[in-house]
């Protein structure tokens, strides 16, 4: 279990101080695939670097299985780091080494004999699906293949936790999907805990079980992915979950009110809900935006409706909320 408690990080720059993280607290359970999502500049990379202490937090602590990292000596910390490895956006392979030797690198650092290291590295090459690339150099591989080698390298020391810093941001959608599938497989096979930093909603939707939304250095929302994404409460979360279709709506005309509904599951997405509401409640709702998303392999529909006044709003919310698979709430229309 990784527990981040009251973490703050302040950088001193030539023009004053920058608070990259403000009092962040999170708990990641063993076996989670935990997503940390935010816009660029939200502090994601700083947060992930505080987990293995590549950055020293200004305040707060990181506990791994109840053990505080900040009080460890350098040699102790180096040992812990072998159990929490990391992959990067730019892969960071050593250009002058073959793929096999890149995978051997962390074992070499740990003092493993080179013959044993090579045997292990070949197993890992097979595990990531590139058994024939042992003698290739990184420059000869595609981005997706390079990230696979980086994953194999990260797994060489049998870590419990894998930190992914924008690991798919430099890849095209198809390759991103392949890498995420690989991560999910490894998570299932090896019982890895994965912490994934990204600015891509689709990445979190595809593989994460829990998500924290980081905005301007603070965690503004945290929970199971379905809950957070189906009914985002914070402004930052809404911006991420409904990047268009919500933000780009025209502002509401005088007196009109807006409702967002989220349908969870198949049964509700197949019911002609709005038509039924019009017949049964005589509410003529105007559909402003609608979409269907797949989150953690489940279908979610969302819709933004506009109704005439406060009374209709009240009745519509009452009507819609009767179905437990539907979440309906009023949304502020911005001026």
């Amino acid at each position, binding site marked *: 279990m990784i527990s981040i408690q009251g973490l703050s990080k302040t950088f001193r720059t030539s023009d004053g101080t920058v608070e990259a993280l403000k009092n962040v607290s999170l708990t990641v359970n063993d076996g989670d695939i935990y997503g940390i999502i935010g816009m660029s500049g939200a502090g994601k990379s700083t947060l992930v670097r505080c987990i293995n202490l590549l950055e020293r937090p200004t305040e707060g602590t990181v506990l791994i299985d109840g053990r505080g990292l900040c009080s460890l000596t350098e040699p102790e910390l180096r040992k812990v780091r072998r159990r929490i490895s990391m992959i990067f956006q730019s892969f960071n392979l050593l250009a002058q080494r073959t793929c096999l030797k890149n995978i051997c*690198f962390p074992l*070499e650092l740990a003092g493993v004999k080179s013959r044993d290291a090579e045997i292990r590295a070949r197993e890992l090459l097979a595990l990531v699906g590139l058994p024939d690339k042992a003698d290739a150099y990184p420059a000869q591989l595609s981005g997706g293949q390079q990230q696979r080698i980086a994953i194999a390298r990260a797994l060489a020391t049998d870590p419990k936790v894998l930190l992914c810093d924008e690991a798919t941001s430099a890849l095209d959608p198809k390759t991103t999907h392949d890498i995420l599938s690989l991560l999910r497989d490894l998570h299932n096979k090896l019982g890895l805990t994965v912490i994934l930093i990204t600015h891509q909603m689709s990445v979190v939707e595809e593989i994460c079980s829990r998500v924290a939304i980081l905005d301007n250095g603070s965690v503004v929302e945290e929970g199971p992915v379905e809950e957070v994404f189906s009914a985002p409460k914070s402004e930052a979360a809404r911006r991420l979950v409904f990047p268009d279709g919500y933000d780009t709506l025209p502002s509401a005309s005088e007196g009109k009110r807006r409702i967002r509904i989220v349908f969870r599951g198949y049964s509700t997405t197949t019911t002609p809900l709005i038509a039924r509401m019009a017949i049964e409640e005589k509410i003529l709702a105007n559909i402003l935006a609608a979409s269907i998303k797949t989150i953690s392999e489940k279908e979610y529909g969302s819709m933004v409706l506009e109704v005439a006044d406060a009374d209709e709003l009240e009745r519509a919310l009452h009507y819609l909320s009767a179905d437990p698979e539907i979440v309906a709430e009023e949304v502020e229309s911005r001026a």
Partner: protein
Amino acid sequence: MPELHFEPIAETWRIISGECPFAIWETLYATILATALAIVIGLPLGVLLVAGEQDGVLPLPKWLLHALNVLINILRSIPFIILMILVIPLTRLLIGKAYGTMASVVPLVIAAFPFVARLVESSLREVNPSLIEMAQSLGATPFQIITKVMLRESVPSLISNFTIAITTILGYTAMSGAVGGGGLGKLAITYGYNRYMYGVMAASVVLLVVLVQLFQMLGTRFAAKADKRQR
């Protein structure tokens, strides 16, 4: 200045064929030995210049790094011809005499190691800082980062820079001919400058050019061969 004249070809050829082989040997010997020693001293210093910074992998006390930088700058700003004379007492102490090829190695090393340190520094600064972060995230010690990441990843660049060093030092050995050093420079100065035998001087210069070309060609080839980035 006396009129420019050429010795009879036979006389010139006699001197060239008689003295050049040994002069080439002396030049190569002084150049290679001085370069090797300059690398032995300059390489660790270059590493310290980069790793010893406050945000480097092996931070040194600020005053020490500052002192190192000042020392290197001072040594680099003394013209070589003057440095040779300045270090004569040290040369006597180390070699027992202040003239000859072996004696010229002392000022050559003193002139070259600060230069090599700067070249190593520039090579190491080319290493992507993300690679160092990667190695840290895998639990590498500072020494492992220096040897396995910083130095290993910059091998092609180090070879290119050492090639620059060896050709520069070759030029310096020729200069050392003016104050008692041996080699092609001495040949050019004693026959060309003191005895107006331009044929001998021209031959020495051609040989120096050939040596520089040779070193540069080999260096470029080795650097390209060592680099696995572009395949």
